[in-house]
């Protein structure tokens, strides 16, 4: 009896605070979403929840759950949050629906830029882009008379000067944690050098000059990094910045706002966002997007409601309220200095992350295999050859390379 009263009171108070006051319509179809758990997704799903009858799962392990949950009939989640990489398994399994009819009906306010088209069909709606780019301590570099670094040679010589001047022991930070992060660092560098990952028939093609150059740059950077770099992920690098321990890092645009968070950061207003340093060909970074997809295993009525709720989640109100949280794709977004780095990298010609089935395996093989080079256990060629061998074994098992 008592529990029921409490539940009722809870329900009443939610209703009383006007749960769907800011939503353009009242949603009466129960909907669920599954997405990653970073700040931007929290903002978007909170805005979706204003329409009522909606519950969001923000889950760091979403990519393990999503393919199975969407393959169920009816799908366990109607709305999914994906990035360009995690879109691949859903596309392959055919568990997400084309959105063209819904875009035509409700999507007048979407930018053409937001429609992710695969073979002419809109399969996802992007809401934000993300990229790793150079962040540096303005004050530190200016004091030593160092120009904004444009290439990795610049970054390294700047680091040498900072260290020599005794300002910092380890001027460079990097997301070098073994696994996904370290793999991503190599992919940035390798694409910056103009390399390509695969030859014919999904065979690997990274054991070449560009690959060695990418490895050598990574190793040169570790000279100026905290020796525990193999355990440092994005959050760790962000904290190193906030505590004033490092002066430069190639860090995600979605972390930029944290530099000016007065509750956490001791370097408010001192970090400048710049383009990712140039490789031989293009800026050494990859452009990512995050966005929503709809499951194909649900009724048209549900899809209709899900699409409208999803659009509410990324509408102009949400974007203006959370302007600095991400680099939003929206007419309401005003690109401030925090977005300058991502924008400049894109203008410099940075490539999109080349997401695909084989790339998923390559990313894992790279992430697991690179540490041996950085710790000095193997030389560059052996490292790359071993990574290729590891990739071939896994790709054969996955059926991507014929035996």
């Amino acid at each position, binding site marked *: 009896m008592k529990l029921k009263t409490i539940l009722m009171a809870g329900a009443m108070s939610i209703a009383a605070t006007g749960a769907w006051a800011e939503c353009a319509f009242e949603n009466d179809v129960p909907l669920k979403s599954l997405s990653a758990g970073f700040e931007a997704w929290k903002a978007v799903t909170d805005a979706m929840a204003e329409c009522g009858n909606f519950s969001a799962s923000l889950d760091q392990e979403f*990519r*393990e759950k999503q*393919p199975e949950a969407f393959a169920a009939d009816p799908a366990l989640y109607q709305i999914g949050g994906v990035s*360009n*990489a*995690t879109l*691949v*398994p859903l*596309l*392959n*399994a*055919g*568990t997400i629906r084309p959105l063209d009819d819904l875009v035509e009906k409700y999507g007048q306010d979407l930018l053409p*830029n*937001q*429609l*992710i*088209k*695969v*073979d002419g069909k809109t399969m996802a709606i*992007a809401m934000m*882009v993300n990229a790793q780019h150079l962040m540096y301590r303005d004050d530190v570099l200016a004091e030593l008379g160092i120009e904004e670094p444009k290439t990795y040679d610049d970054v390294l010589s700047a680091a040498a000067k900072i260290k020599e001047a005794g300002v910092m*022991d380890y001027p460079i930070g990097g997301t070098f*944690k*073994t*696994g996904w992060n*370290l793999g991503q660092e190599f992919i940035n560098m390798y694409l910056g050098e103009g390399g390509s990952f695969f030859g014919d028939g*999904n065979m690997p093609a990274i054991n070449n000059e560009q690959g060695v150059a990418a490895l050598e740059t990574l190793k040169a950077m570790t000279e100026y990094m*905290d*020796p*525990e*770099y*193999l*355990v440092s992920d994005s959050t*760790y690098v962000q904290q190193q910045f906030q505590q004033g321990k490092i002066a430069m890092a190639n860090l995600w645009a979605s972390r930029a706002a944290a530099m000016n968070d007065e509750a956490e950061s001791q370097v408010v207003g001192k970090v400048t966002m710049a383009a990712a340093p140039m490789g031989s060909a293009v800026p050494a970074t990859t*452009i990512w*997007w995050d966005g929503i997809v709809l499951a194909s295993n649900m009724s048209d009525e549900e899809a209709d409601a899900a699409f409208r709720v999803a659009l509410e989640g990324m509408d102009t109100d949400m974007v203006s309220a959370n302007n600095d949280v991400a680099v939003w794709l929206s007419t309401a977004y005003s690109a401030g200095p925090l977005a300058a780095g991502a*924008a400049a990298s*894109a203008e410099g010609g940075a490539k*999109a992350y080349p*997401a*695909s*089935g*084989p*790339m*998923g*395996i390559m*990313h*894992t093989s790279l992430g*697991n295999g690179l*540490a041996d080079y950085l*710790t000095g*256990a193997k030389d560059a060629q052996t490292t790359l050859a*071993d990574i290729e061998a590891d990739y071939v*074994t*896994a790709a054969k*098992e*996955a*059926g*991507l390379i014929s035996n």
Partner: protein
Amino acid sequence: MNFRTFAAFVGPSVFMMLLFIAFPLVSVFKQSFYVTQPIYETVEKETCTPGFLTQSCVTEKVSQPKLDEHGEIITQTQYVGLQSYRNVLEPERAWRAISDGSWHVLSTINFWKALRFTLTFTLITLPLVVGCGLGIAILINNAARSIRGPVIFVSLLPFIITPVIGVLSINWLFRGDGILTAMMEWWLNRDIALFAQAWTIEILMMLYRVWHVAPFAAIIFYAGLQTVNQDSLESAVIDGATRWQRLKYIVIPHLMPLIIFVSMIHLMDSYRVFEEIVGFSSQGYVISLQWLTFDYLTPDQAGNRSISRASANSMLTMIGVVILLILPLRRTWRDHKGGH
């Protein structure tokens, strides 16, 4: 007890064991000989990615799995014999490394690298756990009756803590400028990076494991100490035996079956070392066999996972545990036979 009653008591437990232990084992065993994969076709596809003003679209050849009429991915399962085991063990590479006498190269091959650490970890922590456990048990036994309860509680604490939480707290105490590292740096007056080379990480892992498991050993030994024959102890005292001699000639032989029991449990547990690797995120330097299985099973962002290699690796892990257990088991068997 007649057979019917016996069966009624034992039946449910046997059924559960078949369902949750034997059946999955057989299934993993079978999977290690088969590979299931989707059938891919190569198609030309145009994919567009948002830029800042316009989209950038690329057309390229991609492999995509074929779907059947229900929209399910068509998969084929084929018998591959020992191929998955070969993929895990990489015998040619390993053999080349061994015949070159290059220990260094051998220890860069995943399985052998993991096996090296797993064995070192298991065999070094074993005597430490037994020794510390015995020490704590004797300490508790000699504590005054009034404080015995609190002492037992305090010494059991590490065992109660959830392993992952325990590992993470050690990680945070020592990583970067964690409190304890900072203290050591201040004391030794030099820069210390404990997570920057393999051996320091390994020592931390072993310390953690001993700290975590010793209380379990201690409580078992403490129970055993209650049944030591007091008459023999007293006569030993009268004969002028020292504390050490009493321990060596009376207490330890009495506890031997328990020591074997604790050793076996510890061998089985520590051969499957896993939380330490994840909690310390040490995979750049140190990996274990169990972690390797986990890594094969974790899907990458495109959804690929290596179930066959994971199965093969977990079978190999199990075989390893069995081999390790043969020695203590043989001893128990001998004692058992000789005892009657």
